[in-house]
């Protein structure tokens, strides 16, 4: 019996090693946006502390939070990186599996930039331009009509007459949420379409209608990562892609960045709040593992220390926008303050 033999041998192995094998290193999983920052911190942590280098996994914000909430114990992860705030459903799942206390740590802000081929035309966008270019229905002469814009100049005469082609993050990405809220919804409001939608469909459905995109191939969802968006732009010079600030900063020789509301995205303009499209980045810590997993407390303290997350630290150099309230975060981490209910 092949299957039986196999299970027996597998369990024998599991039992032999099993519970006695104490985990020595911190385990982290979650957002692929936070992954490079966490890897930089983990590397420096391993170099400068007695503890082994933490293991950092990607997989996405939602997946990471779900893993965090799988339960308490050495075969579950300690920290979940997340590019969006934890949801009530995650907290419920956590409570259900005995993970009652979670610490929320905001590490800084991430800017989202719009970039096109370095040799192409320059762009100066407003959220309304993006809405009018990509939305399924737009306002024209006071009425909602299907979007027929072909070039950016059709949308806004001040923009170059280049065919509209946008590579935006797919719906599984946390970045898409920011794009929806900070660009499409804002643009929907500014162009007056939101009012018309609400008048036609009611409050709830009207707001949702703002996020409906045209489906004639002008807006392309990218489900891979930024390297795929970059490759698409290289193949199609008319394309404009959505990137994280750090990715853009690593590829300034291939991409040129567009301004939004007249502001050029940079660490400075994002931290001052002038550049509108940004979001906070978090990690969530399972409090029950503090003091059990060696080095966990030291790792999270090191992550938010001025040496790492401060304005002159390596994370800022890589593209993280330092949190002006970092001192408060450091105090909360030192005191191991668990997060309260979501407001």
């Amino acid at each position, binding site marked *: 019996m092949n299957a039986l033999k*196999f299970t027996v*041998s597998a369990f024998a192995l599991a039992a032999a090693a099993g519970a006695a094998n104490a985990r020595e290193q911190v385990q982290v999983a979650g957002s692929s946006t936070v992954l490079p920052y*966490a890897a930089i911190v983990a590397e420096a942590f*391993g*170099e400068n502390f007695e503890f082994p280098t933490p293991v950092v*996994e990607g997989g996405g914000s939602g997946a990471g939070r779900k893993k965090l909430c799988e339960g308490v114990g050495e*075969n579950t992860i300690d920290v979940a990186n997340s590019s969006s705030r934890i949801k009530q459903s995650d907290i419920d799942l956590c409570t259900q599996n005995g993970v009652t206390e979670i610490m929320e740590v905001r590490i800084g802000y991430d800017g989202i930039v719009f970039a096109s081929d370095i040799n192409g035309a320059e762009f100066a966008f407003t959220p309304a331009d993006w809405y009018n270019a990509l939305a399924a229905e737009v306002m024209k002469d006071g009425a909602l009509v299907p979007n027929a814009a072909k070039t950016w100049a059709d949308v806004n005469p001040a923009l170059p007459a280049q065919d509209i082609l946008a590579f935006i993050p797919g719906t599984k990405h946390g970045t898409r949420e920011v794009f929806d809220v900070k660009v499409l919804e804002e643009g929907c409001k500014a162009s007056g379409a939101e009012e018309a939608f609400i008048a036609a469909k009611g409050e709830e459905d009207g707001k949702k209608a703002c996020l409906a995109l045209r489906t004639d191939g002008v807006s392309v969802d990218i489900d891979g990562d*930024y390297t795929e968006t970059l490759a698409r732009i290289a193949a199609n010079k008319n394309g404009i892609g959505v990137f994280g600030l750090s990715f853009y900063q690593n590829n*300034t020789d291939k991409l040129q960045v567009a301004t939004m509301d007249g502001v050029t995205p940079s660490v400075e303009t994002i931290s001052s709040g002038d550049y509108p499209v940004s979001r906070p980045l978090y990690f969530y810590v399972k409090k029950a593992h503090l003091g059990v997993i060696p080095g966990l407390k030291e790792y999270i303290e090191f992550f938010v220390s001025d040496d790492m997350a401060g304005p002159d630290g390596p994370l800022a150099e890589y593209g993280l926008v330092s949190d002006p309230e970092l001192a408060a975060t450091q105090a909360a981490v030192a005191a191991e303050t668990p997060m309260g209910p979501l407001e």
Partner: protein
Amino acid sequence: MTDTTAQTVPGKRSLLTLDDRTRRRNAAEARFRAYGLAAVTVALIALTLLLVSIFANGVSVFRQTTIAIPVTLDAKKLDKSGKLDPAVMAKVTTVGYAPLLTKGLQAAMEENGISDQGLKAKAIGALISQDAPAQLRDMVLADPTLVGQTISFEALASGRIDGYFKGRVTMDSAALDSNISPEQLALADALKDAGILHSRFNMGFITAPDASEQRPEAAGLGVAILGSLYMMIVVLVLSLPIGVAASIYLEEFAPKNRFTDLIEVNISNLAAVPSIVYGILGLAIFINFAGLPQSAPIVGGLVLTLMTLPRIIIPARAALKAVPPSIRDAALGVGASKMQSVFHHVLPLAAPGILTGMIIGLAQALGETAPLLLIGMVAFVREYPGAPPEGFFDPASALPVQVYNWTQRADPAFVERAGGAIIVLLIFLVTMNAAAILLRRRFERRW
């Protein structure tokens, strides 16, 4: 009789003149040959394109640019107590070591009369990999007596500088690049002319662990190769006995009834199940139920064993089936038991076929990423796993996982790394498949 008369007499044609039907048949054969040749050519072109693109991207990774820096290990900075106490010295972090390297480089420039191109100390320091301070710190902590001396330290050059000498970064791209300036490249050129900066074989790529996005030049495959090796050991140790036992039982001993038919269908089916399914199974059984650690080669090995088993059983059964019944009959005829006939006569004759299937199964398992996604092996791992058997439970990465990880990184230097990792993986695969062919050629018997 001449040709002309042959043509005039119907039904009495020469065999040498082709009639219409023969001509059509010959043409059909020629067409088929052309199709076959075209198919092979397309396959070869695809293979060549693949290999050329991989090698064009990746082969440069095996050379790496380094800078020889005379570093003065200032006792005042590195050992504040003055007693060479390791605990106190460990308090000086890599941040404290970086300026020493920059100063060393500046001193070397002065000595060789190289102009600093108007660059500030920070920009000069940016030529040196961020990995170098960590290397230097490890060196000093391992041998505290070095403090106070001036040592010659071979530091990695930063990824952009390395890219410049490999043609990836140019003066034009540097002018647009926020991470490097043409002045820094000019300085690198001057350093090269002075013999301070040179390129050498990149042993670190094979032995070093992965590195973060800020230091692509230091990233290596060490942990991934070890992790893959550990997983292959687990797969070999588990799937060889289980697979061979299962196939011998099914082929030689099991009665032929509906139940064994069902098993046979299931095995063929399992061989075609997408590998990600085994990852989901592994997460549920080995991690959530059995409580094995995340990211560990043992779990990866177990999952890959599950995946490989049907792919081993099928060729093993075919190899056993290929042994002619006369051998079994002869053994039984001289009084051997059923088991003796199998183990003394059938199995040795089937062994080359079984081993070939085994090696090809292992090679497939070596290249799998999908089942490892869910069990936490697609991760940033910098610590080497320990020696077996404990090492099987330590976190590790794997070769195909490393390729996948590197292709997602923002820094273009990782494209080269990923290409290099594919080359290393291909070398392993080609070696394994060549071994399989060799075994078959040397030991396989035909009847």
